[in-house]
């Protein structure tokens, strides 16, 4: 089920809020678990059992780790848990990719299984892993109530597109959390902000990006069209994913949970390092804490440190999808970060912030080009067309694709609000007129978003496939 669907907005959400708030506190987690399972099965009825299996197995493994804390069984159980979880992820997400590549490389004919990727498997697998590893490290107490653990893993706000919520973040809230009207309203507002970002900006600029990038003639387009497409994708992926995170964080608040922020105006970053401190924070910190630091982080030889960076970014890229372009995208960032950390950072610090912003934004955009175009030969052609300022007649394209001009305004709005312009109004935030005005604008835009959904507008979610 999509947050930006009428079924969610008008049936599921009101129902879960109503039942949740009339229930006794001791049943609240069960209510959330039940509705989360309904939420997941709405989109993936068949794969609900896979998630339940994952919950049960990891629940038992964590109990074993806790019980045999002083024996070697603890280590073996952790290894088994990692193999089990990564194994599931491998089968459902990467098996076809490996089979295809083995067939190509060794001229073999191994049967390719058409396995549909279970929604959200990348997210909930990482959440489960973080829980088991944290129990192993004794950073969190083992959860003895399987329903509470189930609630954590399957909690519908963050289940299918993140943010990756660590067990340690909500451990206490799972057992006891405060509910108050003010927090509920703040959560609702945040949810609406996310909905508006997704429906009004991401969906409309997606029409530009998808029309251009999905065209069979993309390799021959004028560089201006390609730049517009790339900018549109840059805006789409930000508003799509950060919109989803806003909705998740808002929903969490409505049910008494506080999730950590997942985005912090990433496109105003002034270096690639800075960008990754602001983009998909829950993923980058996950890799930092569960891969990079265990590998030795930067407290090792330079060669080992470079290796650690390459491993982490290879995995980051591969996590996003079973395709070579994602691996290249990961390695692209590994190289950029290494260059920055080894040579460039001192030079960059001396440059004006505007130049550093342009440098970062440019490189991030190139990154999104790699991320968006899975076919490497098309990627090469598009990239060459952009840098060589490939100049074909733009008019036939505009005549054929009226949506480009119609949606250009959303691209401009998207670009404006990728900067923290809202913060300009922070000084008024305690004024009654400001808060009332903000709420009216919010509700007006929510109504427009609902109208857009009723109009059956384009509604793709990029991060659903991860």
């Amino acid at each position, binding site marked *: *089920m999509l947050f930006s*669907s*009428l*079924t969610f*907005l*008008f*049936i599921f959400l*009101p129902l879960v809020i109503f039942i949740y708030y009339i229930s006794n506190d001791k049943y609240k987690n069960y209510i959330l678990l039940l509705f989360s399972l309904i939420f997941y099965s*709405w*989109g993936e*009825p*068949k794969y609900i059992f896979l998630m339940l299996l994952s919950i049960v197995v990891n629940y038992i493994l964590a109990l074993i780790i806790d019980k045999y804390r002083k024996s070697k069984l603890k280590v073996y159980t952790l290894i088994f848990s990692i193999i089990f979880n990564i194994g599931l992820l491998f089968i459902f997400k990467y098996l076809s990719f490996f089979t295809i590549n083995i067939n190509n490389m060794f001229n073999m004919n191994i049967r390719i299984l058409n396995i549909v990727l279970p929604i959200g498997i990348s997210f909930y697998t990482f959440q489960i892993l973080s829980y088991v590893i944290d129990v192993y490290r004794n950073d969190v107490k083992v959860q003895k109530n399987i329903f509470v653990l189930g609630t954590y893993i399957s909690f519908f706000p963050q289940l299918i597109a993140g943010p990756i919520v660590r067990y340690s973040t909500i451990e206490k809230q799972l057992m006891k959390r405060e509910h*108050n*009207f*003010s927090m509920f*309203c703040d959560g*609702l*507002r945040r949810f609406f902000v996310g909905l508006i970002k997704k429906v009004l900006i991401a969906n409309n600029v997606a029409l530009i990006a998808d029309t251009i990038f999905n065209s069979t003639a993309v390799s021959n387009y004028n560089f201006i069209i390609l730049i517009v497409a790339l900018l549109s994708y840059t805006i789409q992926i930000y508003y799509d994913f950060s919109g989803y995170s806003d909705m998740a964080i808002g929903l969490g608040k409505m049910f008494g949970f506080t999730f950590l922020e997942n985005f912090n105006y990433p496109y105003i970053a002034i270096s690639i390092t800075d960008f990754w401190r602001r983009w998909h924070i829950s993923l980058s910190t996950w890799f930092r804490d569960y891969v990079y630091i265990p590998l030795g982080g930067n407290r090792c030889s330079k060669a080992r440190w470079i290796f650690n960076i390459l491993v982490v970014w290879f995995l980051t890229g591969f996590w996003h999808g079973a395709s070579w372009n994602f691996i290249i995208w990961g390695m692209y960032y590994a190289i950029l970060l290494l260059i920055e950390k080894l040579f460039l950072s001192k030079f960059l610090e001396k440059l004006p912030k505007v130049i550093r912003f342009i440098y970062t934004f440019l490189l991030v955009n190139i990154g999104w080009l790699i991320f968006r175009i899975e076919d490497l030969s098309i990627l090469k052609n598009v990239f060459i067309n952009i840098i060589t300022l490939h100049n074909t007649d733009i*008019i036939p394209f*505009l*005549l*054929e*694709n*009226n949506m480009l*001009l*119609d949606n*250009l*305004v959303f691209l401009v709005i998207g670009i404006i609000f990728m900067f923290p312009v809202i913060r300009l109004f922070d000084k008024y935030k305690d004024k*009654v007129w400001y*808060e*009332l005005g903000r*709420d*009216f604008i919010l*509700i007006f835009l*929510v*109504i427009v978003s*609902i*109208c*857009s*959904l*009723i*109009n*059956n507008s384009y509604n793709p979610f990029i991060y659903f496939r991860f």
Partner: protein
Amino acid sequence: MNSNKKYINYCFVMLVMLVFFTGFYSLIRVPKDTSIVENRKLTTFPLFNYKLFLNGEYQNALENALSDQFIGSESIRTNYNKVFKFPFASSVKKSICKNNYFSLSLYKAIYNCGDYLVEKPKKMTKDMHDIMSENIKYYSKLNNTIDTYYYFITTSDVFDFRTNSYSMDIPKYIKKEMKGNYTFDYLKINNYNDYKKYFYKTDHHWSYKGSFLGYKDIISMITGDEAKKPVEEVSFDDIYFNGSSSKDIKMFNYKEKFKAYKFNLEPHITYVDGEEGIYGGQDKYFNKDYKRINYINHYAEFYGFNPKELIFDFKHEDKDNLLILSNSYSNAVDELIASHFNKTYVLHREYKDGNFDIYQYIKNRNINKVLFIVDYSYLISENSHVGMGV
């Protein structure tokens, strides 16, 4: 929480609840079956079914039903695209659409910045050729058994206004592919101005002027008679016509006044699907007794919807019996053509199934002449030759 903040929150939640209660109300009110605006059946709320749920069909149906049954969903759809028009986009469009097609969807466009919704001109593909050639092969079988006449309506699908020539020269194609003895004519369009004269702004059908020209051509081709003249040109000024083209692409700002010619035809009997009755709503329209509902399909309401079989009996015993094979285009001219014959049978595609035998149909009704009134869509329809086998 200070008291101001508390009241602001109450106010906020009340407004949100107001918005969301409209959604609830949509769930409990009596569902609507059809949309005149969009010319389609609306999705109603599905009953839960485990099998449909497992393959995702139930979820899709529920989402579609919510979208279709939401309070004011029709006006949301009609107005949403009007609202999101931005001056920058309009001025760029105006600067590039001169003597060009400006695309509004995959198939629909406007030409030369005009307000006529036209089809983008198509080129012949192998698939199109295969279907058309197969159909024409079957039509040809009739040619040597009875007098056959073909009238092709040149639509914007096959004519390119940029070059003022056929993008797909169907008249030439028919002449090349058709075998046996037959007579052929077609609605001639030489340029965009001709098109504007003979077709609706917002609908794919021919306008009252286009269909009248077609009728004159057809009668001249079959009987050589002089065409009947209209007694009046009537403009129905209190209604707008949003044809199928504007509905298909949800461009409801494209609309036009509905006009028609009035004729005085001799008394006759009409059978619609075997029942004696009145076909179309011309009398009602001329008596100003028509539906004044926005977005209604006036072409169909005025000329008639597609029956399976239509029979006009003018009781001209000394004249021939005619069979017309066509689609909705002929609705505008069937009665006029029939006035030149004794009995006229009109068969729409819907009549013909696997058991239908056109030769038997012709024999049983003493039909002397067969007239095909076809457009591009008829020729590429895979079932337009059903019953012509053997």
